[in-house]
């Protein structure tokens, strides 16, 4: 019967069982979350060991809960429900503050310990003079051949940086031997302050017009110049850290907040989140002080960050290792970035499709899979044994790590270059641009955010590496400060490893190692999140 048939069909629609599918779905979700959850638990454990929040008075917790946590959570919850964009803006600001504070710390260490502001100023000037000359020559490119210009500029750079012995002193030396030397903070204001206010000015000019941009730039520079008079009396920090803090943290943060507030009115309210966090923290601090509640006995404290290694866990600090990691990172970036991007450009834009190219191609993906210890052996055998460089120096460590991340930088740069739309190339070549003109004017600007993302991730990998440093003979403990390329290197992961293996006492396991792990993980998470935020923005644009 027709009707019976129909009803049996109708029943049949409900008969396909979804039970297996549902179970499967949740199994998949569980497997996705497993690794993340385990890592989260481990991080909570290590943070607990390092910070020891339970040693604080209950009143301390209560105070901060009331001043900091509750208002922030309430506002964030409200914004999450009503205005997600504002919440995003607020969290970005907080993230920017944290990241830029970390960055200022690194810069401050460099200027206090490694690089005297005068030397820095001298070299900035020594670079600036020939650069201006180069731009001036570029303007006259029609009268002078490329070779002439190239020789003149190269000579100018060399003279300015190193001088001609016995004939002309270098600009760098000239500045350093000047009879009158301004104060350190003046030198830093002139350099870092300018570096910070110039992009701020162009950002403001992009939003409004040139005059506003100029005004904002002058204002930013004035703020940096004023900082050494505000920093010491109000916050009790020196003049040099004040200038660094102003130009690396304050100016960019204010610029970002101001720019967003002007351009995206809807998100403006999100500024509440960072205000509440900063204000709540300050209010809590004042209250706790007046009420006399004791805070947690954290192992991650100022003392830990600024002391050298010690045989006793309580006194051990990470300072030389932090500085070593910063110097390593600078060296690795300086070595691997130009070479990696150059190789990627060659393979994507220049290389003919032939056997050599394919061989290089396969070779690079194989190099990416070579274990890091083997790179360590390469560093040991090549730089130390064959070339006779002293073992365990920053240069040898940096060069080894640069070789290690080179394939990663090449692969990610190639992806970024490949994602530049072909129409752009066609347009440029169609106008009669040469390869290099196309690369310089069209491809590099467009691929740059992607290249930067890949490089930051690779640098994160490099400063997390321990094995290659051990292989090249980096010392287990370092008491003195690494201050130049030929000093012995220490690095945060290496220090953590030596605490965990050579000073394997319970005291170290419970105090110094967790504190070191927390610092190391914080730095790496910050780098990863910069890269991820950069990539998300970049992907939205394209």
């Amino acid at each position, binding site marked *: 019967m027709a009707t019976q048939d129909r009803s049996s069909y109708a029943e049949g629609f409900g008969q396909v069982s979804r039970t*297996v*599918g549902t179970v*499967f*779905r949740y*199994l998949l*979700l*569980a*497997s996705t979350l*497993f*690794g*993340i959850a*385990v*890592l989260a638990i*481990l991080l909570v454990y*290590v943070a607990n060991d390092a910070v020891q929040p339970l040693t604080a008075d209950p009143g301390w917790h209560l105070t901060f809960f009331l001043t900091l946590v509750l208002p922030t959570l309430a506002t964030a919850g409200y914004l999450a429900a009503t205005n997600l964009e504002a919440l995003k803006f607020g969290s970005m600001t907080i993230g920017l503050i944290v990241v830029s504070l970390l960055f200022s710390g690194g810069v401050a260490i460099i200027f206090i310990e490694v690089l005297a502001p005068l030397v820095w100023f001298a070299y900035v000037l020594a670079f600036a003079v020939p650069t201006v000359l180069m731009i001036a020559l570029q303007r006259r490119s029609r009268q002078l051949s*490329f*070779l002439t210009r190239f020789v003149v500029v190269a000579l100018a750079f060399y003279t300015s940086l190193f001088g001609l012995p016995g004939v002309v002193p270098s600009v760098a030396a000239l500045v350093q031997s000047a009879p009158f030397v301004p104060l350190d903070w003046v030198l830093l204001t002139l350099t870092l302050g300018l570096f910070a206010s110039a992009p701020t000015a162009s950002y403001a000019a992009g939003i409004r017009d040139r005059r506003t941009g100029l005004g904002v730039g002058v204002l930013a520079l004035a703020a940096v110049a004023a900082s050494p008079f505000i920093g010491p009396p109000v916050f009790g920090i020196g003049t040099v850290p004040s200038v660094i803090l102003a130009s690396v943290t304050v100016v960019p943060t204010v610029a970002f907040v101001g720019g967003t507030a002007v351009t995206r009115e809807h998100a403006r309210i999100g500024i509440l989140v960072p205000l509440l966090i900063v204000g709540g923290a300050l209010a809590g601090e004042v209250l706790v002080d007046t009420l006399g509640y004791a805070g947690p006995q954290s192992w991650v404290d100022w003392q830990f960050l600024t002391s050298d290694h010690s045989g006793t866990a309580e006194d051990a600090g990470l300072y030389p290792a932090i500085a070593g990691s910063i110097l390593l990172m600078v060296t690795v970036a300086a070595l691997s970035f130009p*070479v990696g991007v*150059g*190789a990627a450009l*060659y*393979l994507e834009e220049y290389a003919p499709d032939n056997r050599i190219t394919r061989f*290089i191609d*396969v*070779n*690079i993906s*194989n190099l990416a*899979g*070579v*274990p*890091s*210890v083997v*790179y360590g*052996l*390469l560093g*040991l*055998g*090549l730089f130390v*044994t*064959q070339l006779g460089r002293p073992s365990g120096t920053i240069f040898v460590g940096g060069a080894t790590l640069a*070789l290690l991340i*080179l394939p990663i930088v090449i692969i990610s740069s190639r992806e970024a270059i490949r994602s530049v739309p072909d129409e752009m190339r066609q347009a440029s070549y169609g106008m009669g641009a*040469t*390869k*290099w003109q196309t*690369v310089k004017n069209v491809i590099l600007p467009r691929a740059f955010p992607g290249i930067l993302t890949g490089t930051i991730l690779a640098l994160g990998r490099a400063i*997390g590496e*321990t*094995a290659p440093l*051990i292989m090249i*003979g980096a010392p287990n403990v370092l008491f003195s400060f690494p201050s130049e390329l030929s000093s012995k290197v220490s690095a945060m992961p290496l220090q*953590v*490893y030596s605490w*965990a*293996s050579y000073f394997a006492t319970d005291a170290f396991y419970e105090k110094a190692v967790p504190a070191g*792990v927390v610092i*190391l993980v914080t730095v*790496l998470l910050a780098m*990863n999140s910069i890269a*991820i935020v950069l990539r998300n923005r970049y992907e939205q644009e394209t």
Partner: protein
Amino acid sequence: MSTDDLTDDLTRNTANAPPELLTRSFFFLCAVLSIFVTIGIIGLLVTEAAKFFSITAPLMGVEGPTASVVDFLTGTEWIINNEQFGVLALVTSTLMVTFGSALIALPLGVGTAIYLSEYADPQLRAVLKPALEILAGIPTVVYGFFALIYITPALRVVFPSIGTFNLLSASIVVGIMIIPMVASISEDAMSAVPDDLRQAGYGMGATKFEVSTGIVVPAALSGILSSFILALSRAIGETMAVTVAAGAQAKFHNPFNPAAYLDGGSPMTATMVNLLTGDVTGGGLAYRSLFAIGLTLFVITFAMNVISELIAQRYREEY
């Protein structure tokens, strides 16, 4: 413009103008540098390892103690002071860690990949993918410390006889570390499966479960396999986590004996680190043994990378 000018203009050579030549040669040098790195690695490992073995040492003009290739490849004792270099004592530990981490990472990685490519909505993916990347971004020495300080004591509750240094905790952290690698490469392979195939499945009345397991996974199989091999090669080369967690005592284990996981061992990479932080004197036999292990490690991982590349190429050709 007159035609003469035009002809002159057309024949002006721009390709070899100085800026072009300069930049092109620089970029070419950068690309070729990678070949030199490979040559450097292979050359160094081979020459130093050649000085280690008694067969080849005379060719290298090396005098003094050497080790026999046969003993190296078949010996089961690794005791530097006795000059006993049996690499099997190290290889078995490496294999056990690799196998143990594979047990964790392969199923979880594939599960993650299926979830991300077939089930998760874009918003969830936007959160989960960076979170997974962070798993791979944590320094390996930190993982080693986690294994030593938190995971081993937790395991002691279940296995009271577990050693302070053991292969089990090392396997667990290495497994967690390589999940993102399996997941991201497998997901790429699954995303490359054309939507037509899925549509065909749904058109036949298949459920999402049936489409995922019956159509997508088989279609992406070679990609998944290549991710497995790459991840295992990564596990073999993993150094700091196993150095901290598995210990330094080289011991030959029966890899098929699960109880051996509770015991410590010294995988190849850990041995290399310990050799350098311990008693290596430059140029001695122990120093050269470093390169012999390095060569073994390099050959194994290199072979696995090549195999994985070959498999991956096959799946790229399929679609």
